[in-house]
């Protein structure tokens, strides 16, 4: 179980802008998509859960343990590349090292490397890979070693369409609790039974189901009967069901839809 309780994070200490503001989120036996524009706090949210960013207030916990004190919890994984830089080894060695550190077998990860056609990366160091290859290596690491909680930051960024679909298929089949951050809408229709949150300027809005997305509309201002209100620095927006100004599902990403409504 993953839980954030009233978590706030500010850039540059107490006087900076909010990266996350009073975020509450609980994920238990479910798969969640957090969707938001660039710079909305999606990555910070995952980093707080991984203990890589410390919350200025509130608490982040995994399986009931505060992430600041958690130790040896091998069932949590992530695709963030920065956590796999323990030393400057090749991809093959990194897979073997982390499989050992996770108390698992490297076979699954190596099989995924071949399944994604990435065998040429095995003998290379991380910095020698393209950004798409780096992302895929992170994705593979996050899906391997029998995790029960997977935290994925923009897993489809810089990944070609063929690999996206394969990746999506593997993610859907996973039995783990998963949180995926993304700013893209185009693959959401394949995750209809997933829970959906929006994140704008560090504030989280939801919860919805991805299957609801085709019926959700974004409106400027607070519309009577709306299901959620987003108070942002560029104005107030509201989400309505079944009718409204702009259908959210029609947008390619959240950056463009706010431009359209505004």
């Amino acid at each position, binding site marked *: 179980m993953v839980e954030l309780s009233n978590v706030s994070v500010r850039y540059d200490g107490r006087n900076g802008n909010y990266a996350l503001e009073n975020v509450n989120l609980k994920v238990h036996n479910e798969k969640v998509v957090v969707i938001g524009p660039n710079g909305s706090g999606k990555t910070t949210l995952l980093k707080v859960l991984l203990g890589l960013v410390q919350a200025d207030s509130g608490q982040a916990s995994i399986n009931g343990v505060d992430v600041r004190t958690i130790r*040896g919890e091998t069932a949590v994984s*992530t695709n*963030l590349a*920065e*956590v796999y830089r*323990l*030393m*400057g080894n090749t991809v093959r060695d990194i897979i073997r*090292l982390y499989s050992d*550190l996770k108390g698992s077998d490297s076979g699954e990860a190596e099989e995924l490397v071949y399944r994604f056609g990435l065998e040429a990366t095995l003998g290379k160091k991380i910095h020698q890979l393209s950004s798409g290859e780096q992302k895929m290596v992170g994705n593979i690491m996050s899906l391997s070693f029998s995790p029960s909680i997977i935290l994925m930051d923009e897993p489809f960024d810089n990944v070609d369409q063929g690999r996206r679909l394969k990746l999506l298929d593997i993610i859907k089949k996973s039995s783990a609790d998963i949180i995926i951050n993304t700013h893209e809408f185009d693959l959401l229709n394949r995750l209809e039974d997933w829970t959906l949150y929006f994140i704008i300027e560090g504030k989280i809005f939801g919860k919805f189901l991805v299957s609801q997305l085709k019926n959700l509309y974004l409106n400027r201002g607070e519309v009577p009967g709306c299901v959620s209100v987003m108070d942002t620095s560029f104005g107030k927006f509201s989400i309505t069901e079944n009718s409204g100004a702009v259908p959210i599902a029609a947008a390619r990403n959240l950056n463009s839809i706010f431009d359209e409504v505004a």
Partner: protein
Amino acid sequence: MIARFYLKSLVSNRALWGWGVGFMVFWLFMGSYIFGFNMTTKIESLEYTSVWFSLIGLISGSIISTTVAYSVYYANSSLAYSFRFTKLKPSAYIFNLMGSTSVVGGIIGAFIIVFTVILFSSRSGYVLLPVYPYLSIAMFLVTGMFMFLLSVVLVIFANNYTGLKSISFIVFIPQLLSYLFGFSELGIPLPSAVVYASPFSDIPRLLYQTYSGNASPLNMSNGTGPLLNPYILIVSLLFWTALLFVLAMFLVRRIKPRSIEEGRQV
């Protein structure tokens, strides 16, 4: 397993071989062929060779330290993650990587012994083998441990408590101290208390003794002054190593994940 992978990572590091061995061989060549080698007897030649060997040994160790410092710096987020979400414990990290660095120190030390023997013997006409080669290797192993712990302490302290803009200076502190102590001993004789107390003097003095077979004189540049007690040098070096070990254990448990991009900003 982590020790094996770190050893592999260090051994495959071209910069370490280039600076830690290649550049040191260049200086050994300078010491044997370019600078004033005017020794006439084998004993004089061996002492002159031992001085060069001791300084080059110290500086090559400090180059290992810089390599380790960069690797620890780049790993700050990985360590914070690994201590939470893998079975890696801070103590295992320190022990394993210290062991790997020590072995690399020994391997590089072996190369330095070989090149010292070849260059100085060919220049002098005498076969100038180290008197206690196994102790020379042992000293390189200890130097590797000391340099690893020093770099861990410096980098994690900077990472946790200071801005990272100074990181490119901090990783070179062991080298700066090595050059400072190493070359100042050739020019300005240091008081014996400083020589005993400084690990950057203990290391070359002990390396000198393993190569020449004799205790190091206080004034190494001209071989004058009282002979130094090797046991005090050993105790001093071990004390510093133990102190750094305690500090490294304390700091690594508290490592803060920082963006490595901070260190790249000008």
